[in-house]
C-alpha cells in the first residue's frame, strides 16, 4: 500500500492556497499602479509602517514561508524516511507563521484599525497548516519504531512512496 497520509496532502493543498494569497498580496505590495483612493478602503493595511520589515514587504516574507512549506511537503513525499524531521520543520515554520499572523491581526484590529481580508485569509490558512502539521508530527512520531538496529527506521508501508 503506497498511500500517502491524508494530512500530508491537506498540508500541501493549504500551502498552495497560501502561495496564491501571499502571491497576490506581494504583487499588490509592489504594484504602484494604484490610481484611486476611494472612501473606506485605501490599502490602509498595506500602506501602514508595519507592512514592511527593513524595506521587505511582509507579504513577500509570507510568500517565501508558503513556498518553503510547500517545498518541504514535496520533499516529504519524495523522502518519506525523513518524514519526522521534515514534518517537524514544517510544523516549526507554520507555528512561526501562525504566531506572527496573530501579531499582525492584533495590529490590524487595535493599532491600524483596518482589516485586510486577504491578510485574514492568510492567517486562517497558516493556522490550519500548523494544526495539520502538528497532527502529522504526532502521527509520524507515533509510527516511528524502535529497534536495536537503530532509531527511526520508517514503517515498511512508507519505505517507497510515490507522489500519487
Amino acid at each position, binding site marked *: 500500500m503506497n498511500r500517502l497520509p491524508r494530512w500530508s496532502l491537506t498540508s500541501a493543498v493549504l500551502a498552495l492556497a497560501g502561495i496564491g494569497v501571499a502571491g497576490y498580496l506581494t504583487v499588490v505590495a509592489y504594484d*504602484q*499602479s*494604484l*490610481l*484611486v*483612493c*476611494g*472612501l473606506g478602503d*485605501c*490599502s*490602509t493595511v498595506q*500602506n*501602514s*509602517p*508595519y*507592512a*514592511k*520589515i*527593513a524595506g521587505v514587504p511582509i507579504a513577500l516574507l509570507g510568500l517565501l514561508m508558503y513556498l518553503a512549506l510547500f517545498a518541504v511537503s514535496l520533499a516529504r513525499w519524495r523522502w518519506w524516511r525523513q518524514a*519526522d*524531521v521534515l514534518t*517537524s*520543520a514544517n*510544523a*516549526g*515554520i507554520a*507555528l*512561526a507563521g501562525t*504566531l*506572527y499572523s496573530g*501579531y499582525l491581526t492584533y495590529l490590524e484590529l487595535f493599532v*491600524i484599525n483596518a482589516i485586510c481580508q486577504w491578510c485574514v485569509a492568510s492567517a486562517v490558512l497558516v493556522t490550519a497548516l500548523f494544526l495539520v502539521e502538528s497532527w502529522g*508530527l504526532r502521527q509520524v*512520531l507515533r509510527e*516511528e519504531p*524502535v*529497534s*536495536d538496529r*537503530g*532509531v*527511526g527506521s520508517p514503517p515498511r508501508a512508507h519505505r517507497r512512496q510515490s507522489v500519487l
Partner: protein
Amino acid sequence: MSTSRELPPRAGSRAEQERLSRRAQRKREAERRARQRRLLLVIVPIVIALVAVGIGIWWSQRSAQEVAAVQMPDVSKYTSVPHDGRFLGDPNAPVHVIEWGDYQCPACKSFEQRFFPTIVEQYIATGKVRWEFRDFAFIGAESTRAAEAAYCALDQGKFWEFHAALYANQTGENVGAFSDRRLEEIARVVGLDVGQFRSCLRDGTHKEEVQQMIREAQSLGVRATPSFSVNGSAPFTIRSLGDLTQRIEEALP
C-alpha cells in the same frame, strides 16, 4: 524484537546471558535515544519558531517607530514653470485642470511621483495647461492637518515645494507621518520660517478654508482621490495616465 523468544537462552550459559543482557541494554539505549529524538523534534521547532517570531516582532516595532528622516524631494519640476499659490503654469493656458488630492492617499503619491512629471513636461511647461491643486482630505485627521500645513506653506510662497515634500514623506495613514512635529520638520527642510509656520498651524489659520474646500469638492461630486476636472467638467478618476491626457487633448483648441 522477538528474537529472544524464538531462541530461548540455554540456562547456565554465561556467555549467552551476557549476550542477551547486552542486547537488552542496546535496546534500552535505542529506546532512550528514540525518546530523546522525538522530544527534540517537538521542542526544537517550537524554540526556533518562538525566537524567530520574537525577532520579527522586535524588528517590526523598531522599523515602525523609527520615524524616517524627512526627505526633501527634487522640486525643480515645479520651480521651472510659472507657479503661483495653488496654481502651476501659464495663467492664460487654454486648458484648466483641477486635481483633488489627499496627502495621505497612496494613489495621489503614485500619481504625483510617476505621472505628474510627464504632465508638467508635456502640458504645463509648454503653456497648454494651467494646473490647480485642491484638497479633498478624507482619509483622516492627518490628512486635514497636512492640507492646513500646505496652506501655511502657501502663505510663505512655497506651496508646491511643501506639497512635493508631503508626498515624499508619506509613510502610512494616520500613523504620525503628518503629526505636527513632523510637519514642522518638513517645513524646516523645505526652507520655511518654522516659527511662522508653527503659529499658523497651531492657530488653525486655514482650518475653515480647508473644510470649505472639502465641502465644495463633495458638492461637485468628488468621492475619491486623485480626482480631476478639465475645463470645468464633472470630476473624474483615472485608471491610467492616458485617461487624463486624452481628456486634456480633447480640451485643447
